[in-house]
């Protein structure tokens, strides 16, 4: 297969304002039948089968079978839940645990909820973009802004995704290491799961397998219950954002920035939009996509709060968790939440790394496939889209291999990966803002003023957090340390 990026034919160098650039209202049935038969692909057939199931349920809805809305949501949900539970990855859950261990139950509980609200604002736009344009995020950036800005966006994604993938396998190794499983077995087994998930050659099946794994993020909830928190403190913290964290300002700022980066990252934009496209969603599915995204953000914020609460006993008992790595959290928690609670915590870290390894490597593969205009769908068999699958497996294998090399200072990667995510986000948000306000691309589904205000607020907060972090690092005395 020729994987050189084909120069796309320019539809209009100066598009007419107000007109969509592509026919978005015509059914595929309007394509002449002979032409259709020659050009239909395996990907088209699989996607159409998924859509057929959705349309059948919609037809049933009109007969007022009220419970059918649940069936319809079951069919359409997926990208939103996956992106948020995938973002509750190993470094994110460890960041949440670190806030609980260092500052207990207080400010960071409602702050985490705020970060998920920010995440929802951003991710909802990718649902609209994917459902209306049927193009992935990388493809749209390249098409509308050209290869110069496209490769800049890709550069941020590639670096961020690779570093994050490394930390996912660190989490897998550490989580299973608590149970005495050797690193090579843990990491190798995780890689096999990644391979297994994509061998189905079907987006729907891959999505359901990954969702089935992602739901185990719930393991942090029983771990939190075993920590026997004072629920009055939890309620007080959620309502009053107190007590505020006390200590070195630079450490507090680092955790604030890392907590934001645990929720809002560039790979999420690329993944969810491409998943929406691969799933075959259409504009009429946007409300279901919003609900799916909301459900994902709510579930992920609950599990994140659970991780904070689960680690809070370390704060209560004055345990210094400043340099803790993944497995050390579980071991340190064992006296306070028991062997069962510590095991659940460790399993949760393993699950977090496992699911994110699948979703992040898939987001890289989607972006590369869209950039190179080669096949990029989980509905394609390996032989039809080998660059897509090679990118997916290659990035995962490379990250897994790095984790197994002795004496590599992996802890510094874990330290910075969420911070890097926050710092790389503003340019990604600007591209998103420009695309989702582009009436020639989005037509009537363009952003409204409230959505624009919300996104701009998120962007300003991210830039402000990044600048504060930068100033605090270069001029530590500025923060009063």
């Amino acid at each position, binding site marked *: 297969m020729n994987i050189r990026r084909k120069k*796309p*034919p*320019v*539809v209009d*160098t*100066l*598009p007419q304002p107000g007109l969509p*650039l592509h*026919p*978005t*209202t015509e*059914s*595929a*049935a309007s*394509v002449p039948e002979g032409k*259709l*038969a020659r*050009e*239909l692909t395996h*990907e*088209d*057939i699989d*996607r*159409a*089968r998924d*859509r*057929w*199931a*959705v*349309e*059948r349920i919609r*037809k049933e809805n009109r007969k007022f079978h009220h419970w059918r809305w649940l069936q319809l949501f079951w069919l359409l949900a997926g990208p939103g839940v996956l992106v948020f539970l995938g973002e509750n990855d190993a470094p994110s859950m460890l960041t949440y645990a670190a806030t609980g261990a260092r500052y207990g139950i207080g400010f960071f509980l409602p702050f985490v909820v705020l970060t998920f609200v920010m995440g929802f604002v951003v991710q909802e736009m990718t649902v609209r973009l994917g459902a209306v*344009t*049927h*193009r992935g995020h990388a493809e749209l950036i390249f*098409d*509308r*802004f050209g290869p110069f*800005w496209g490769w800049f966006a890709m550069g941020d994604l590639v670096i961020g995704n690779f570093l994050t993938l490394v930390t996912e396998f660190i989490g897998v190794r550490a989580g299973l290491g608590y149970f005495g499983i050797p690193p090579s077995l843990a990491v190798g087994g995780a890689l096999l799961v990644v391979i297994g998930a994509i061998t189905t050659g079907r987006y729907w099946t891959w999505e359901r397998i990954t969702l089935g794994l992602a739901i185990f993020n719930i393991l942090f909830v029983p771990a939190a219950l075993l920590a026997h928190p004072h629920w009055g403190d939890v309620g007080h913290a959620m309502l009053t954002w107190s007590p505020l964290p006390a200590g070195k300002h630079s450490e507090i700022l680092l955790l604030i920035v890392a907590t934001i980066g645990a929720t809002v990252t560039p790979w999420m934009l690329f993944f969810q939009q491409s998943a929406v496209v691969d799933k075959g969603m259409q504009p*009429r599915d946007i409300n279901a996509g919003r609900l799916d995204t909301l459900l994902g953000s709510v579930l992920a914020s609950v599990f994140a709060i659970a991780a904070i609460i689960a680690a809070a006993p370390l704060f209560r008992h004055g345990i210094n968790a400043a340099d803790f790595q993944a497995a050390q959290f579980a071991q340190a928690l064992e006296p306070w939440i028991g062997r069962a609670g510590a095991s659940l915590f460790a399993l949760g870290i393993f699950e977090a790394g496992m699911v994110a390894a699948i979703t992040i490597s898939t987001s890289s593969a989607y972006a590369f496939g869209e950039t190179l205009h080669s096949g990029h769908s989980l509905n394609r068999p390996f032989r039809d889209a080998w660059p897509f699958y090679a990118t997916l497996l290659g990035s995962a294998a490379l990250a897994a291999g790095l984790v197994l090399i002795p004496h590599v*200072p992996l802890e*510094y990667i874990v*330290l*910075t990966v969420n*911070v*890097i995510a926050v*710092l*790389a986000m*503003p*340019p990604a948000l*600007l591209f998103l803002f*420009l695309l989702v306000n*582009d009436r020639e691309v989005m037509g*009537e*589904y363009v952003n409204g003023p409230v959505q624009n205000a919300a996104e701009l607020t998120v962007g300003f907060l991210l830039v402000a957090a*990044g600048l504060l*972090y*930068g100033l605090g*690092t*270069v001029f530590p005395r500025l923060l009063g340390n």
Partner: protein
Amino acid sequence: MTDKAKHVPHANNLSQDAAEENLAQQSPEEPALLVSVLEVDQLVAIKEKTHFGRRRLSGGERVLLWLLRGYVIAMMAIVALSVFQAIRSAHP
């Protein structure tokens, strides 16, 4: 927001009633009928041949893009500095 399905024309000589009747099937074997539930630009062949045109960036948008690009590069340098400081404090 209008329901785009209301604007979907029925082609290939299928009547409205026939199309709805066929939705009762698990999934049809005939490809033309099966893909009738997709929009035309969801087809791989159509997507490969059509692309959105290049959009002209305004002066302000270019300035903002470059500013943010400079911000990211500067911040990555600061992150590298932070990691260097961490390594140095761990191994004095």
